[in-house]
């Protein structure tokens, strides 16, 4: 875990105090809403459908027990006893009162947290692999790089008013769990032929109304060149990114309009100038940051209770089959805690559940927690011998749902239940799908499947990269849900393709059921996943099952 320095603490406390003054001036009428709006957005405060929403940064999804407990306390003291973990590894409070937000920011500052740059046309909170520093398949820990990027991008004076928001993700594994190909900049930690550390840099990925897969701008960037190179990309974007049309303002459009070679040339020219400005101080900072991310002191103990309990308890056994991921240390496991109990709102956790997670992490996961972009909580370092106790503690908190990677482990933005941009609800669809397939007792036989649901074209629910994507729109004054198939947010990046006309709120769950039943008959065998089957067969047989009447008409 990164520990705040005195500088960090002072900066965050100062920003909280500044915002207290700004709120006071808004309330006493000194500031108009037009004047106040950019100030509140810089501090993560939105005004949504029913109330204000405060988005708190959890940089690269990493937090400790003390911080999780503080978030639970905020949920109880200033909100309605729950909070929402977002698809950007952040946490959102959906019911704060304006005059109490300064108190919330002050409370956050006491545990080294803030809401800075969780909104606005700036470099947003950096995201990363939620298994960072723990995964068996990891080649290099992305967290020091993510922290370096966080420090560099926080309050960067030149990049406070970009053409549009800007998102950077970092991964250190070949298996891309951080969706790096769909970020403005995606960084992959790699080595060159001589084993030197560096990055593959992708640019121009994104979801939203114009989904695009990031393109590799540099296949190898030396580690010490990272910040000047990022600076060069941002300078080019800041200068030529469009400001005349917000829908064409993201760097993906800049790249698309200018072409990869043009952007590469501009970035290299800027980089040549920037490089000289970096005298190595950034590498000293990186070295200090790395010292914060040493592996915890893993214990040497028997794991026999793990196997014994698996043999004796079928529920525990089921949990271990879906919710564990291999850890670097063979005696340890990474536990993914599902925030998708069947029928629950994806990503929501009660304050009691957040406190339970804080306590469990403190006792059994070296004090560490992660938030995944798939809206689950990770316990990154659990000794296998402790897993029976961890499972029992999770079960008592209603957090032991064994569904990670299955159909009910779907992600969904808050949609029209909260968001003022939404054109339809998304959580109702998520709940409906989870309940339907739980009732059918089919989700384990269906196997790995990622359904992602967005309540508008902005795609916070990542529907473009869902194996099955669902986009909620308004059509003729009612909610209409469009299905896309074949999306993939990993290193095999693919954008899902729309199947055809949308379905009403009443029709969408039966449509998904038809789709899944069709897959079960089409797959070669139980080990062929939905995505593999789709890639083998293409959309045609799935369209037939989605639109049976129409297809039949066409055949006549």
């Amino acid at each position: 875990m990164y520990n705040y320095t005195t500088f960090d603490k002072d900066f965050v406390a100062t920003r909280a105090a500044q915002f207290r003054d700004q709120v006071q001036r808004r309330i006493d009428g000194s500031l108009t809403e037009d004047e106040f709006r950019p100030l509140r957005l810089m501090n993560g405060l939105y005004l949504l459908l029913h109330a204000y929403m405060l988005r708190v940064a959890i940089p690269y999804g990493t937090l400790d027990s003390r911080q999780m407990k503080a978030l639970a306390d905020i949920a109880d003291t200033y909100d309605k006893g729950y909070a929402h973990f977002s698809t950007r590894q952040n946490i959102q409070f959906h019911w704060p009162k304006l005059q109490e937000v300064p108190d919330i920011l002050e409370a956050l500052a006491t545990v080294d947290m803030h809401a800075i740059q969780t909104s606005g046309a700036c470099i947003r909170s950096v995201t990363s692999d939620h298994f960072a520093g723990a995964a068996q398949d990891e080649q290099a820990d992305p967290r020091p790089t993510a922290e370096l990027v966080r420090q560099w991008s926080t309050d960067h004076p030149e990049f406070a008013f970009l053409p549009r928001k800007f998102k950077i993700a970092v991964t250190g594994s070949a298996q891309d769990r951080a969706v790096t190909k769909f970020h403005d900049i995606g960084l992959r930690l790699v080595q060159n032929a001589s084993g030197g550390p560096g990055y593959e840099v992708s640019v121009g990925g994104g979801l939203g109304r114009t989904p695009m897969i990031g393109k590799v701008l540099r296949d190898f960037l030396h580690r010490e060149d990272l910040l000047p190179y990022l600076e060069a990309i941002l300078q080019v974007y800041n200068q030529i990114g469009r400001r005349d049309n917000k829908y064409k303002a993201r760097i993906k459009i800049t790249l698309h309009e200018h072409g990869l070679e043009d952007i590469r040339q501009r970035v290299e020219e800027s980089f040549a100038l920037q490089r000289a400005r970096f005298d190595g101080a950034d590498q000293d900072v990186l070295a200090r940051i790395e010292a914060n991310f040493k592996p915890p002191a893993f214990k040497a103990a028997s794991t026999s209770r793990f196997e014994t309990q698996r043999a004796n308890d079928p529920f525990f056994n089921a949990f271990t089959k879906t919710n564990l991921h291999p850890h670097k240390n063979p005696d340890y496991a990474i536990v993914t805690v599902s925030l998708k109990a069947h029928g629950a709102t994806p990503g929501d956790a009660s304050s009691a559940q957040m406190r339970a997670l804080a306590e469990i992490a403190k006792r059994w996961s070296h004090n560490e927690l992660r938030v995944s972009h798939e809206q689950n909580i990770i316990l990154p370092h659990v000794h296998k011998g402790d897993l029976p106790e961890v499972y029992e503690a999770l079960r008592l908190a209603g957090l032991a749902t064994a569904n990670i990677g299955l159909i009910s482990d779907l992600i969904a933005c808050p949609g029209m239940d909260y968001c003022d941009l939404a054109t339809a609800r998304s959580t109702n669809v998520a709940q409906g799908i989870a309940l339907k397939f739980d009732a059918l007792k089919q989700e384990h036989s269906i196997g790995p499947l990622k359904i992602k649901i967005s309540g508008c074209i902005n795609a916070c629910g990542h529907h473009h990269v869902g194996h099955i994507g669902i986009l909620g729109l308004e059509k003729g004054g009612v909610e209409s849900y469009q299905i896309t198939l074949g999306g993939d947010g990993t290193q095999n990046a693919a954008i899902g393709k729309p199947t055809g006309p949308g379905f009403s709120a009443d029709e969408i769950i039966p449509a998904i059921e038809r789709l899944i039943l069709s897959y079960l008959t089409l797959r070669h065998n139980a080990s062929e996943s939905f995505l593999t089957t789709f890639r083998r067969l293409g959309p045609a047989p799935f369209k037939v099952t989605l639109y049976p009447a129409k297809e039949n008409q066409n055949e006549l």
Partner: protein
Amino acid sequence: MTLKSALQIITANDLLSGEVVYLTADGAWSCHHRNATIFAQGAQPLKHLAEIERGDTSVVGAYLAEAKVGEDQAAMPVHFREAFRATGPSNRFIGKQASAA
């Protein structure tokens, strides 16, 4: 946004709580859509809206919303977005619907 309905209400969010509010006949703000004053589409609601935007610092983002008259003559939302604003999230019994219970 083009409004199709001939009847309109004025709605906004309260500055402090962010709660959805509706303009009443006496110029105050109510948390309940049933208390909203209903305007015929035309100059009058636009005049009220302009006055609110100019001088009412107690609310944020006032706008005209389509409305219809309920069985008891009270204002009812037309669009489903306004229906959610009038009740609260559909995924949780929370917000206005819980306050009214």
